[in-house]
Structure formats: C-alpha cells, structure tokens
C-alpha cells in the first residue's frame, strides 16, 4: 500500500517537473526518432533513383547526336537547351548536370572509335551527383547497345567479351540502408526508455537526498523496501510511457514514407512494431532497475547525472559493437540484457524468424539481472550511509 502511495506521489511530483517531462515525453519519443529516423528516410530519398520519373537534362549541342537524344527521350529524360555558361551554372546549381557533346562525336562514332562525351557535374552537391548517376546509368545502357552493334557488324558474337556473367543480387544502397534502419530501431527504443526514466530516477533518489527530504521520509512507519519499490514503480511507469510513445511515433513516422524506399526489406506495419516492442519489453523493468540502483549510490543530482551519463554507454555499447563486429545471435549472447534485445529487434524488423528459445533466454536473462539490481538497490537503501 505504502508502495503505491510513494509511487503515485513520485509520478505526480515529476509530472510537474519540466525537465523530467521533456525527456520522458518529448526527447525519446519524438525528437530522437525524428532526428535519426527522419534523416535516415531523407537519405533513402537522396540515394535512390526513380528511373520511371520524367526528368529533364540540359544538353549542349544536342543537334550533334540526334540518335542519343532519342534514346534519352525513350528513357524518361526530356532534353533541354543548355545554359550559356555551362561550368558556372552547374557550380551555382542552376542546372544539376550538363551533358556536352563535342564536335567530333559523330565522326568518332562513325569511325568506330571511342566517341567523346563530357558530363559537367558538381560532386559537392548531392543532388547533382544523383542526377549524374542517373545519366551515367542510362548512357552505359546506350554504350552496351552500341558495343553489341559494333561487334555484330564485325561478325563477332558479343557474348565473347562477357567472360563472366555476374549477377548482382540486390546490393544496392537500399538494402544496406534497410540493415542500418533495423539496427537503429533498437537503439531508438532503448535510448528513449533510458531517457524517459533518467531524470525521475535521479530526482527520486539523489534528488531526495540533496533536498534533505530523505531522512524524515525514512523515519516514517513504513518499510524501506516500500520506499525503494515505490520509486522503482514510478520510474518503471515513465520508462514504459516513453517506450510506448516511441513505438507510436516510430510507427507514425514510417507511415509517412513509402515502404518501397526501403527496398521492400522492412515492413513497418503495426504487427512488426508490436512484436519488436514485446521483445524489448523485458528491458523496461531492467532499465528502471539500472537507473534506480545507480542513482541510489549517489549523493547529489550532479553526481547522479555523472554516473548515469557514464552508464549511457551501456545501452550504446551493443549498438556500436554490432555495427563494427558482426556478432551473431547465439544462445550464448541471448541471456545478456541489451545485447540480446538489439539482436532480437533487428531480426524482428528484418522479418526473420526468431527461435522461441532465444526469446525465453533473452527475457529470462534480462529479468534475472533486474532482480539482481533490485536486490542491490534495496540493500543500498538499508545502509545508514544513505543519510550522510
């Protein structure tokens, strides 16, 4: 009973604190997904080229290569007149790229020699680079057609020159971005959970010591465990709230963008997200326990911020670990809190099947660690040094 009184008071008290509310309701659930997810989605848009979209291309001396112009037109490119000063206007960004056809283009082509073409591009500008890649891709198709024609003309089978028939299977930028997204999602979830409980945990433990309100509280006729678990319960509420809101905002964010952008590898439907959230849910009690325990050691909010700031490495470590060393999901890695959730969530987002054993090990390991931390927190609250 006292437990719930403590919990309720801490929640009301902290809902009145702007800092706590900002980190629980805005930072994790809204700012973080927008920052990470938003820029990721934006980069998809920039990297991916839609060949069906009709664009225009400035061509200098288009009249020197009518066949090529026809070919371009057939590949959704409208040829337009090039501006006066080509180099300056590309540099300024007036036009993205300019294709220049030199005077001897037709002669060289007819003579069966490499025909010169100049593509003016501003490589410092991403948009210009993207336009250039599109033009290059279409020109290489044209080149291949010409090559085949030349070879056939000389009575040679064009396939003679294809000693290798390399089939590239979806290693486009989209695929790797999907992978990146799958690893960012657990990071988002875990960070926003941590940030959601961060200030409440500090305020209810170290803050209480700093305000000198802990001593009268502990001299009341209630068990210290009620105090510890009440504060833990309040932290858990904020962590959960932050986690749920993050799930909702991630869902909303990715609803706004076409799925095809992500190469069809990732399905951001409600089911995937619910599955990911459920897999991550053992982390809710774990993170709350971690926050409460670490800040129970500290005397002041400043000290607590220092220690918890360092502790932020813990949720970040698996992210970087998995980015640089590819650690496979094994039964060995599953009982490790955080690491296992990173791996499980990644699989969930990529739509892989997950063995039941892994889920059980992950949840079991995380909950066991939670119990251990809570025992430690209770013992910390039994210390007389708490009042120093």
């Amino acid at each position: 009973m006292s437990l719930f009184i403590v919990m309720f008071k801490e929640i009301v008290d902290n809902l009145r604190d702007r800092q706590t509310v900002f980190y629980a309701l805005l930072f994790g659930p809204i700012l973080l997904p927008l920052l990470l997810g938003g820029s990721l989605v934006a980069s998809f848009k920039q990297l991916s080229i839609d060949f069906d979209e009709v664009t225009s291309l400035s061509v200098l001396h288009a009249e020197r290569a009518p066949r090529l112009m026809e070919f371009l037109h057939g590949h959704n490119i409208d040829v337009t007149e090039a501006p006066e000063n080509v180099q300056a206007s590309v540099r300024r960004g007036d036009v993205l790229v300019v294709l220049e056809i030199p005077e001897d283009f037709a002669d060289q082509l007819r003579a069966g020699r490499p025909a010169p073409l100049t593509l003016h591009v501003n490589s410092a500008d991403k948009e210009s680079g993207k336009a250039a890649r599109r033009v290059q891709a279409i020109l290489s198709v044209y080149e291949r057609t010409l090559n085949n024609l030349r070879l056939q003309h000389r009575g040679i089978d064009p396939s003679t020159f294809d000693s290798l028939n390399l089939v590239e299977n979806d290693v486009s930028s989209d695929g790797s971005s999907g992978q990146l997204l799958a690893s960012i999602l657990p990071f988002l979830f875990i960070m926003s959970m941590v940030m959601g409980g961060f200030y409440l945990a500090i305020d209810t433990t170290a803050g209480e010591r700093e305000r000198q309100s802990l001593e009268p509280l502990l001299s009341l006729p209630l068990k210290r465990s009620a105090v510890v678990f009440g504060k833990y319960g309040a932290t858990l509420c904020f962590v959960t709230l932050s986690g749920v809101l993050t799930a909702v905002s991630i869902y909303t964010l990715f609803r706004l963008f076409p799925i095809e952008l992500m190469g069809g590898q990732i399905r951001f439907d409600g089911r995937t997200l619910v599955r990911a959230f459920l897999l991550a849910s053992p982390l809710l009690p774990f993170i709350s326990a971690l926050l409460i325990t670490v800040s129970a050691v500290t005397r002041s909010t400043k000290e607590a911020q220092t220690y918890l700031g360092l502790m932020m490495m813990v949720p970040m470590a698996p992210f970087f670990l998995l980015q640089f060393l590819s650690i496979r999901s094994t039964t060995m890695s599953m009982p490790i809190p955080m690491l296992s959730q990173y791996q499980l969530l990644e699989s969930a987002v990529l739509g892989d099947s997950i063995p039941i054993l892994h889920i059980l090990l992950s949840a079991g390991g995380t909950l066991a660690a939670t119990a251990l931390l809570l025992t430690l927190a209770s013992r910390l609250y039994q210390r007389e040094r708490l009042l120093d």
Partner: protein
Amino acid sequence: MIVAEDLHRSFKRPGGRAFRLPFGKSDAKADSRVVAVNSVSFTADDGRITGLLGPNGAGKSTTLRMLATLIRPERGSASVDGHDVTRDVLAVRQHLGFMPHNAGIYPRLSARENIHYYARLCGLDKQQAEQRVGQLIEQLDMKGFADRRATGFSQGQKTKVALARALAHQPQTIMLDEPTNGLDVMATRGLREIIRQLAADGHCIVFSSHIMQEVAALCDHIAIISDGSIAMQDSLAGILERTGENDLEDAFVKATLSLQPETDR
C-alpha cells in the same frame, strides 16, 4: 516518553573512499573511527519539553537519529513509549514524529500535498488524511499558503510544513532537531507557542538546539550534551543551582568544562 541508556555510536572517519558497496565487512579498527556519541543517557517525560543543548558536533543529531531508528546504536539501549529502538523499529516510528535538522520538503508539491503524503504513508486512509491535514493547517496557522507550491516558501513556512508533516500521524512523542534554525523572531515565537501547546496536550517533546536562550525560554528539562556525553541534566533552576551560576550560558560552560578532563585526554 523517551528513555535512553548509555547510547554509544561511532562513525568511520570521513574522507575515506567515496562510497562502499554494502557487502564488505566493516573491518575498520577502533582508532580509525570518530566517536560521535559516547554514553548518552537521558529521560524525556510526557507533557514536558526536554531540551538537548549542546554545541555543533556534540552528538545531538546522532542521538536523535538513533532514537528515530535511522541508525543503530553500537552500545546501550533506548525506547520510545516503551518500544525498543533496535528491535521494535516500526512501532517506534509509529509513536514518534521526527523533524530532522534542515528537513527538506518537496518543492513541487503544495504544503497540503506535502503533509497529505506523509499522513497517507503513516497509514491514514484518504479521508482520514484529508481531515488530519485540515486540522494541522488550522493548528499551525498555515491557511495562507496551504495550497501554494512549496518552491518559494520562506524558512518559517517550510518549517511549519515540516513540523505538520512530522505530526501527521498524531505521534505521542515528538523530536525536533534544531527547528528554529533560520527562523526570524516572529516565526520563532510562533513555533515556541505551538511546541508549548503540544506539551500541554500531553506530548513528550525533545527539542535540540545550540542556542542557550532558546532552550532556557522553552524547555522544562534540559540535558546538556558535550563531546558525545551528557554533562548534566536537570530543570533550568536545578542546573543553575548545581553549577552556582545565574545564567544558562555560564552554567553550560561550567558543566561542559567539568567533563573535559575525562574526554580530552
């Protein structure tokens, strides 16, 4: 009623390691410890204000903390209304209202909410708690600021809230650790009135202070504490008579000096 007998408590010398996990054995040797309280015995009766008078660092707060079950005495025993402070912890807390030195209140809660929280934690149900809080607001004259958040409270207002909080569960015994610290004259007088009234209602009150006039003006019974021991305890008149002085300050100096040769060597 409080009975303390031969309470003893020492602490690890400060400036050691920043913090220690609670698993280690206390391996400190006797000489590396500071003795905060060394043989404190006194009695505080119901219906009386007992003053614990001593300079800063004399061991007043440590004594009160031991009585409030926040720290355990290493030696000796004490009871609050017949409940032993080491064995019967929850019963002691139920009978005791403790207002520690510089007790903090929650700045984002109103005065009313601060008191209500404590009343609920002491086991009152919602209705009882509301009733009790209303009573205390009336009793301590807090109507003017009861529903304001505590952020901008004056020291006097904060003290009233802290006192009301300590009284929330209607404890028989009340301990106040330097309650007049930082209060202006009017607030101090007001607080004194409240304390006198509580004693008149039959409560046992222990009041610690390092201010002579404060103790002389308020207390029926005075225990002078110095270097962790009780140097003398009696009524004000009794102390003056025993020391042959005619004001408490001189009596205090004399009483504590008589203790010096034993402890300082």
